[in-house]
């Protein structure tokens, strides 16, 4: 079974040279720590930056330089600032190669629910609805089950949707799953996890074909 850092590490293996990538808040942010050596990946922060660098050193924080999670950050050589319309323009126009975000639920049709729990405080969707509506390649990083042990991989989302038919791949603590027109296709299992455990933790339609390899991290 993977921890949050290992989920991020596995997702980092999906990165390719030249990719422009938007990382959501939570586990997705950790992907930045595992960008493979020898390739150039440019991180987009939807509040108006391409070329986001690591957190600043103590004493070097700049109030005019934050990420979408409002954390202080730095820029890398070759970075660019722009306004919020340009930022979502590049997202809407499909210029961002990969979007990684967290979710509360994902359906086997690729629907995602990630922004609202009715009856509890609703904080808002931020940029998530824009991202999922336009991104060509969306990977969800999340735990396979919620804090009550219930599956987050469903046949239909129960929570209010963020977007429909948009998620392409899910990396959880248990498995790597691709979403196809047939449903969830199990691609890889986490070290020490059996196919049965993954089956039991998945409510939506899970397709298991042949031997399922153990994931490389």
């Amino acid at each position: 079974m993977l921890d949050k850092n290992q989920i991020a590490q596995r997702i980092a293996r999906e990165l390719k040279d030249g990719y422009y990538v938007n990382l959501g808040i939570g586990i997705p942010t950790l992907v930045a720590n595992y960008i493979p050596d020898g390739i150039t990946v440019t991180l987009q922060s939807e509040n108006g930056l391409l070329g986001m660098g690591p957190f600043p050193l103590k004493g070097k924080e700049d109030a005019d330089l934050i990420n979408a999670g409002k954390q202080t950050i730095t820029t890398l050589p070759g970075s660019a600032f722009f306004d919020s319309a340009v930022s979502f323009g590049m997202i809407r126009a499909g210029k961002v190669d990969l979007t990684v975000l967290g979710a509360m639920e994902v359906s086997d049709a690729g629907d995602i629910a990630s922004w609202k729990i009715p009856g509890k405080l609703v904080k808002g969707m931020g940029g998530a609805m824009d991202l999922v509506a336009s991104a060509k390649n969306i990977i969800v990083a999340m735990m396979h089950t919620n804090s009550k042990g219930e599956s987050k991989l469903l046949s239909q989302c129960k929570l209010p949707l963020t977007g429909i038919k948009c998620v392409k791949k899910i990396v959880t603590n248990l498995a790597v799953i691709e979403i196809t027109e047939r449903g969830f296709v199990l691609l890889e299992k986490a070290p020490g996890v059996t196919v049965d455990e993954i089956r039991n933790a998945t409510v939506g339609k899970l397709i298991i074909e042949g031997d399922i390899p153990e994931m490389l991290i």
Partner: protein
Amino acid sequence: MNKVYNNAEEAIHDITNGDIIMLGGFGLCGIPENCISALEKKGVNELTCISNNAGVDDFGIGLLLKKKQLKKMIASYVGENEEFERQLLSGELEVELIPQGTLASRCMASGYGMPAIFTPAGVGTEVAEGKESRIFHGKEYLLEYAFEADFALVKAWKGDRFGNLIYRGTARNFNPLMAMAGNITIAEVEELVEPGELDPNEIHTPGIYVHRIFQGTNYEKRIEQRTVRN
């Protein structure tokens, strides 16, 4: 032509109860601090605020919330504010949550003289309820209208007496879009200079969009999530 005002109090003197105002900023980054303080001091009420976020309890738009000066908030994300939550749950405050890119584009459309835009954000979700939609190239898009705002309050790094503005870092965010969208746009700047001192190649907001400008004072520029590496 004189666009220069002495301070925030004078620049916002004619904002009145019930007005629709846009406020630039992302979180607390690039917010019009001086104008917000002046609105709080003036005690103007029943405002509709269009801004990406609603500040925190004791800073930004949170100051106006605390004094119950807001009737309605239009934003994309409103976490980090207990007073906001209280007023939302008690029904004192009307709230409209919209996708961040839609918020940006509805400001942009206004400044571009376009009545509406089509965006795929929110298709198939509760955001789409009651909205017109159209299919282009096999994909569904929602019709979203340009905002109309009585005033836009923006914050820039530098500006000149003609209203030309330059922003700094990610403090740019919604500011240039809202600057284009206000019936009256009020810009507060950290540094007010003479025409000619700013390089025309580097202007982000051309002065035609800016009706009033003043040199701000005592910027706190508070950091919401101070994060450092070891």
